[in-house]
C-alpha cells in the first residue's frame, strides 16, 4: 500500500477544492447552459399557458380538453418525452426545451385557471359597473387577482424544470446533468457532488427570486393578509402548490 496522494483529485474525494479551481470554466459553462434551458422553457411555457388558461376560463367547454391534454402530457416520463420528441428535433437543445415546455404547461395552466376562477363574481360585477370592457376587465382586474395562484404554479414549474434539465444529459444538453452523467461513467465523485449541489442551489435561488418578484408585484396581498381568503379556488390552489403537482 502506498500512502494516499495529497491531491484530492487523485484520491477521488467527494469534496475537492482543486476540482473547483481547475474546472471552474466547465462548471460555469454547465451552469449557464442549465440556466438558459430552464429560463427558456419556463418563459415559453408561460407565453403558451396564459392564453390557454384565459380561453379555458372564458369558454367552459374548453376547460375539460385543455386540462386533460396537459395532464396526459405530464404522465409521460421525462426520458420518454425527450425520446418521443427526438424525431422532430433531433439531438439538440431545442429538444430539451420543447420537452420542458410541455411539462411546465400542466402546472402553469392549472394554477392560472384556478387563480382566474377564484376571482370573486362581485369583483367582476363591480368592474363592469365601472364601465370596464372584457379586455380591460381581464388585464387590469382578473389577471392581477390571479397572480398569487399563477406565481405558485410558476415557482413549482421553475423548480421542477431545474431538476428535469439534468435528464437532458441523455441527448447531451443537460446543463449540470452532463457533468453528473460524465462523472457517473468515470466514477468522478467530486464532479457528481458539485454538479448536484449546484442544481439544488439553482432551484432554491430561482424559488427565492420568484417569491421576491411575487412580493413586489402583489402589494395588495400584504395589506390584506389579516383577512381570511375567500373564494372557492383558494383551497385548490394551495393543494396544487403543496403536493398535487408532479415534479
Amino acid at each position, binding site marked *: 500500500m502506498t500512502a494516499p496522494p495529497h491531491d484530492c483529485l487523485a484520491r477521488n474525494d467527494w469534496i475537492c477544492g482543486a476540482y473547483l479551481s481547475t474546472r471552474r470554466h466547465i462548471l460555469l459553462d454547465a451552469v449557464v447552459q442549465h440556466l438558459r434551458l430552464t429560463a427558456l422553457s419556463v418563459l415559453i411555457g408561460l407565453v403558451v399557458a396564459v392564453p390557454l388558461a384565459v380561453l379555458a376560463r372564458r369558454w367552459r367547454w374548453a376547460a375539460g380538453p385543455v386540462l386533460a391534454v396537459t395532464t396526459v402530457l405530464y404522465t409521460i*416520463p421525462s*426520458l*420518454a418525452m425527450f425520446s418521443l420528441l*427526438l424525431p422532430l428535433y433531433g439531438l439538440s437543445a431545442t429538444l430539451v426545451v420543447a420537452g420542458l415546455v410541455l411539462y411546465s404547461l400542466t402546472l402553469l395552466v392549472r394554477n392560472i385557471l384556478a387563480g382566474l376562477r377564484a376571482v370573486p363574481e362581485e369583483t367582476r360585477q363591480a368592474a363592469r359597473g365601472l364601465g370596464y370592457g372584457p379586455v380591460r376587465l381581464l388585464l387590469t382586474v382578473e389577471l392581477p387577482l390571479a397572480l398569487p395562484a399563477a406565481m405558485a404554479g410558476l415557482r413549482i414549474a421553475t423548480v421542477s424544470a431545474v431538476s428535469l434539465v439534468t*435528464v437532458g444529459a441523455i441527448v447531451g444538453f443537460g446543463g449540470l*446533468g452532463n457533468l453528473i452523467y460524465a462523472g457517473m461513467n468515470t466514477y468522478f465523485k467530486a464532479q457528481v457532488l458539485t454538479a*448536484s449541489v449546484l442544481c439544488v442551489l439553482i*432551484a432554491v435561488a430561482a424559488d427565492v427570486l420568484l417569491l421576491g418578484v411575487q412580493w413586489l408585484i402583489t402589494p395588495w396581498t400584504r395589506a390584506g393578509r389579516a383577512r381570511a381568503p375567500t373564494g372557492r379556488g383558494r383551497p385548490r390552489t394551495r393543494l396544487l402548490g403543496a403536493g398535487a403537482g408532479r415534479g
Partner: protein
Amino acid sequence: MSTLTASWHWLTDPAHWSGDDGIRSRLLQHLVLTVVCLAASCVIALPLALVLGHLGKGGALAVNISNAGRAVPTFAVLVLLLLTPVGRWGEGPTVVALVLFAVPPLLTNAYVGMREVDRGIVQAARGMGMTGRQMLLHVELPLALPLVMTGVRIAAVQLVATATIAALAGGGGLGRIITAGFNLASTPQVVAGAVLVAVFALIVEAVFAIAERLAPRWARGPG
C-alpha cells in the same frame, strides 16, 4: 411518419419481446421496481403523515419536505448513491432514490387530507368518547381517504415515469429499451420504448381511476 411505422414494426416483432433484454422481462422489472418502491414509500410516509395530521403538528415540515423534494433531481440522487457503498447492491440506489422521490407527494397529500377533515365531525367523535386512536382510524382516516389515495396515485404514476431514469445509471426496467436505442442510434427503438413507458403510466392512472369508481361511496372524492 416513417419513424412511427418503424417503431410499430419494432414493437410488434416477436423477437423483441422474449429474452433477458426483451420487452416482457423489462416490463416485469419495471412493474416490480414500481410496486416495491410504492409499498416502501407508503410504509414510510403514510403512518407518519396520518399521525402528524391527527395531532395537527408538523404541517410546515410535511409541505416543505414536498417542496424540497421537487428541487432535488432524481437523476443526481441516483448517481450520487451509485458512487457510495449502496451502489454495490444491485438495484439498491434505484430503490432508495425512487423511495425518496415518492415520499413527498404521499406525505403532503395524506397530511392535508387529515387536516381538511371537518373539525365539527372530529369534535363530535371526541364528544362521543372516542379515544385518539379510534378517532384516527374510524373517523379521520375514512374521511381523508380520497386525498390520501390521490397522493398514492400521484406517487405511483411518478414512480412509473421516474423508474425510467434508472436506466441512465445502468438499472433495469423499460428505460433500458430507450437508452439502448440511443446507443444503437435506433430512433424506432427509442420511440417504441417511450411509448411503452407512457402507456404503462397511463394504465396505472386508469387502474386508480377505475378503483376509485368501484370503491364504496364514502371512499370516493367529492363529485
